[in-house]
């Protein structure tokens, strides 16, 4: 019966049409961005391959005694010529969200230099667009999908009262709660089914391969997250309907709640957290870096000998052969890095403190929880970047160790060495850790959902014909 009423009304269909268009636009944007990243990574791989082939042939010619083949010192090779990019390819569900991926680098040309030097360049993007954020599927789910739900549920009780049909069925021998919940279930089931269907359809249309490692699990998590968030908004709608106000009042209250959850609370949290736990200053870091490298340079030979003494595993001889400029550069660089270790540690712990505080505070807004969950599922969240960053660090260390030994021994690189160089392959996180993180977030969405929902359903029995 309720279904026939709903189907006869033009408004829900119009809303759904708009929602469909918006969803498609979001998916298209995500698809474009993932494609852009994949194209870039392909260009990068081409460039890397070409350079390696050229370097390899140079080393081969040298090995065959070709005197015109001048091989640069190992340091120069390790610093630039032999370096390739360590890349973080978009994950299996990458098209569903842009997330933090427009801000964080997804490729780095790791060298024997310090991490600050090769991580210096940011991905190019108009800062105005960064500020606005992306119109991706995650945005549609966090911001627009609640509006669709609320538009179809705000007057589930008050609409009957406004129409005057309420006294008619209130006088029948049926429980008002049951009638209202049935009405609600029909409307909500309809929206949820459409939203989940659209999400999955968009995922498949934009080329998400279900056979990819973890794709099905992640897609299921996505659906679960959308469902949990939907239930949260429905609980709010029930509670507001149960207050027994007019339709217009319900609309205002629900919109206020929406504004609070998706705009006011998140930006307040951001403001409070950054004030209480200020972002560590990159400006100060830049100054400290220069100061430390100046100090190491001023110490000169002393710093070099100190480094060699402290690292016998790299330089067995304990001294540098005369004219080993790269050895000297590296020794000074590593002394600088060592001197800065406490500064970097303080920087990182300030960052961690801020993120921990923000993670705790996000409990206050299911919108933040959902955004983080969806970004995580799509492999666009901060955790995947940290995972990548840790692997990058390990790779950087391996790369340095590989070249440092040859630099300090003043050995030229051979073709065999080149073939044996460390390479980087990103190892994807296990699905388990993603599942665990996302389920924790969803649990935090479900707690307020149950409390508000239970209160609302309990109160629905007291719904009156005339309102209060």
């Amino acid at each position: 019966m309720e279904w026939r009423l709903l189907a006869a009304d033009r408004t829900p269909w119009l809303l759904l049409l708009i929602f469909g268009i918006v969803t498609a636009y979001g998916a298209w944007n995500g698809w474009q961005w993932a494609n852009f990243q994949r194209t870039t990574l392909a260009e990068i791989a081409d460039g890397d391959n070409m350079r390696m082939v050229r370097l390899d042939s140079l080393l081969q010619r040298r090995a065959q005694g070709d005197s015109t083949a001048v091989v640069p010192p190992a340091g120069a090779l390790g610093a630039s010529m032999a370096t390739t990019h360590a890349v973080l390819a978009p994950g299996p569900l990458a098209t569903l969200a842009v997330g933090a991926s427009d801000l964080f680098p997804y490729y780095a040309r790791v060298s024997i230099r310090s991490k600050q030097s090769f991580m210096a360049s940011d991905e190019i993007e108009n800062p105005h667009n960064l500020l606005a954020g992306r119109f991706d599927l995650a945005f549609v789910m966090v911001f627009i999908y609640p509006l669709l739900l609320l538009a179809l549920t705000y007057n589930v009780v008050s609409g009957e009262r406004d129409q005057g049909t309420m006294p008619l069925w209130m006088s029948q021998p049926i429980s008002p709660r049951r009638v209202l919940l049935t009405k609600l279930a029909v409307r909500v089931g309809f929206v949820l089914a459409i939203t989940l269907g659209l999400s999955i359809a968009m995922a498949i249309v934009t080329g998400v391969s279900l056979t990819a490692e973890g794709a099905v699990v992640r897609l299921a998590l996505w659906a679960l997250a959308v469902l949990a968030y939907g239930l949260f908004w429905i609980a709010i709608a029930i509670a507001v309907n149960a207050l027994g106000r007019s339709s217009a009042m319900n609309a205002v209250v629900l919109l206020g709640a929406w504004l609070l959850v998706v705009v006011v609370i998140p930006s307040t949290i951001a403001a409070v957290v950054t004030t209480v736990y200020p972002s560590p200053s990159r400006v100060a870091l830049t100054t400290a870096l220069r100061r430390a490298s100046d100090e190491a340079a001023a110490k000169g030979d002393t710093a070099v000998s100190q480094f060699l003494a402290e690292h016998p595993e790299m330089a067995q001889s304990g001294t540098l052969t005369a004219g080993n400029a790269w050895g000297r550069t590296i020794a000074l660089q590593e002394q600088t890095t060592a001197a800065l270790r406490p500064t970097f540690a303080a920087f990182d712990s300030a960052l961690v403190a801020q993120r921990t505080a923000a993670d705790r505070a996000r409990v206050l807004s299911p919108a933040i929880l959902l955004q983080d969950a969806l970004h995580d599922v799509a492999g666009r969240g901060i955790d995947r970047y940290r995972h990548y960053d840790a692997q990058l660090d390990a790779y950087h260390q391996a790369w340095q160790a590989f070249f440092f030994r040859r630099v300090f021994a003043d050995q030229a690189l051979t073709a065999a060495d080149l073939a044996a160089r460390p390479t980087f392959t990103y190892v994807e996180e296990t699905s388990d850790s993603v599942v665990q993180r996302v389920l924790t977030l969803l649990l935090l969405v479900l707690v307020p959902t149950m409390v508000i929902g239970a209160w609302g359903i309990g109160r629905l029995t007291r719904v009156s014909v005339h309102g209060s």
Partner: protein
Amino acid sequence: MIRRIAVKEMTEMFRDGRFRWASALLLGLMLVALATGATNSRALAREHDAAQETMRGFWVNQGAKNPHSAAHYGLWVFKPKMPLSFVDYGVDNYTGVTTWLEAHKQNEFTRRPAMDQASVARFGEWTAAAVLQLLVPLLIVMLAFPAFAGERETGTLRQLVALGVPMRTLMMGKAIGLASALAAVLVPATILGVGTLALGANFGRGTDDVLRFAAMIGAYLLYFTVVLVIALAVSARSTGVRIALLTLLAFWTVNSLVAPRAVADLARRAYPTPSSFAFLAGVQRDTERGLDGHNPADARRKAVEEQALREYRTISLDALPVNFDAIAMQASEEYANTVFDKHFGDLYDQYRAQNTLTQWSGLVSPLLAVRSLSMGLAGTDIEQHRDFAVQAELYRRGLIKWTNNYFRDNTRTGEWDWKAPPELWARYQSFVYDAPGMSQTLRHQGAALSVLAIWLMVALGLLWSTPAPRVA
């Protein structure tokens, strides 16, 4: 008659508990936003100035050094915070704040503050601009939606029309009445803003900042007028309060939350920018086509050599009274500079094209136009960033040229071990950023200004053409 209507609207508004509550809340939020904005801006301004000072100290005290080594050592410069940035952070958190000025290359700006913020920061920042752009329009919508639709529903509109009150008069009266009620919120907010500005640590070029602040107030007032008239027009044309409210809330949502993102993606598609990898590869490719100052085998170096020999009327480099290495390096710099101008220029032009498209999209969402103006006037948009980047780059070029010329004039070719005296470095003037005046800023806001002018015209048209209400 208009005055009477306006006074009645105001009286009703002030007696409404919801209005008092909402405006107190808004004023409170504004106060917090201004206070945190001022504190943050001031702290950042101090930090950047101090860092700039420290870096200059490093440069000045680098000791006896070969001028080219000094050029390689280079200098870091930091973008100063603009005095009005406390009102609108703009893109400040999304642009790098510092760049390294060194020999041979123009570096990008790095250290985007946004990278060090928690993901929640992407939901938006709590600035005075956010309150003005998002919450004030919401308050206007909440105040104005029942203006006509409500009176129609309660029947008072019927009575007013029966009294022979012309619709246009009623519209004007209501607009003025609601605007006056809003002034109760906006005037204290403005006074607070002026106060904060005057107390600002970096209140630099007095008159220009005052002009910018005044222009900003003007832009926001224009925006509020547009929103108010749209709200009244919708209310006058709606059949009921519910429709008026829902229509206006839909407008608000699209205007504030949906359009900015949708347009950002559209602009990216219309005027694509390269990846960082492709950009740097392009710069490198074009630079390599030029002259390599350090490579004597380079054919193009020969041409510079012949020119130098002609100029100094000698036949060999050994007989040259100056250092040819320095001449070659400067020639290489100058070639590279044209490459940087082209690539960085193209990139920033692409940003500008994107932003112009965004400004024109203000025809759908006036927020986009006022946001662009607000950032521009606050000195926190990409044009201001570009201006700073260009000045920093020109300073770099001057500095490198100065080291090259000094090297050229004081040594002979091949004297790479020669060191300049330690007191030399202080002789090159320090970098001082000369921020553009307001007129220069407004040159890039043409579209935004046109859009607001068009909206105002539409709004006035709507006011004028208010149809007789359907009362029966």
